[in-house]
């Protein structure tokens, strides 16, 4: 059952946007909130990168995905567009699997 989770997630994301627009400004200007919220995307996206690159299920693994993320990292440093970064990672993994 995937639909309830999807719909709840959509409702939560819209609710957060709505809260920002409607709630009294002072509520969200607490310095603790102002400090914490910008850190959230950095931490969660980095954790996702680590998990999706270096683990399979519950095992830590080092495989072609590590090289793929490194190549994608070079693409980022070269300021490549989003699609090029994603495609360079995917193509690296595909090529290495073909060769190895």
């Amino acid at each position, binding site marked *: 059952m995937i639909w309830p989770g999807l719909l709840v997630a959509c409702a939560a994301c819209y609710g957060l946007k709505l809260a920002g627009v409607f709630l009294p400004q002072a509520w969200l200007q607490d310095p603790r909130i102002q400090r914490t919220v910008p850190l959230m995307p950095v931490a969660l996206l*980095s954790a996702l990168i680590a998990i999706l690159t270096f683990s399979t299920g519950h095992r830590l693994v080092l495989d072609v995905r590590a090289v793929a993320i490194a190549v*994608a990292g070079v693409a980022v440093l070269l300021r490549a567009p989003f699609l090029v970064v994603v495609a360079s990672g995917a193509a690296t993994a595909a090529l290495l699997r073909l060769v190895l």
Partner: protein
Amino acid sequence: MRDALGIGIASGAYALSFGAISTTAGLSLLQTVELSMLMFTGASQFAMVGVIGAGGSVWAGAATAALLGTRNALYGVRLSSLLGIRGLRRVLAAHFVIDETTAMAIARESPPDSRFAFWATGLALFTLWNLGTLAGALATHVLPDPKVLGFDAAPPAAFLALVAPRLRAREPMAIALGAGVVALAVVPFVPAGIPLLIVATLVVLLGVFRRESH
């Protein structure tokens, strides 16, 4: 107007990869399109399908998506005072409160220009984001085994592209590394998706209890 279209087209390309990754993660065409129509906030959508694709539960994905959506609430605070949108229109405007529309609106000199930038970017983005999602999902349906094409390496590359612009200072860099290490340290011991919630909890604790550094 040209800026709005430019951003819309760039995000259409970005949506292509969302459609492809979501389909590869096992979501149906309808579910993929539904996320782009109703969630309409890129990082949350990518995280949702990333967690599901990695074997996590849909609820862990939902929690991660919501945590990533918290920044939109802060954008909403800035935009509602800047744009001066009143009444029921705010219900529609709220849906468009995301990274790109906020950046475009606050870059303008006067409130009318900001309002125009907000709505133009929002409409262009919403249209092209959903068209891109549909195209990416449809294209992936006709492709062979996703792993052969390296599609399992696509989500981390996408997240890297998303997080990179936020890493320009030492503190976010340290947080990024710390988050990655903590996540990997707990992966063997907790259900899929939970490492992200542990990381989120630590971020909240850090944000609340850290001494003022400036």
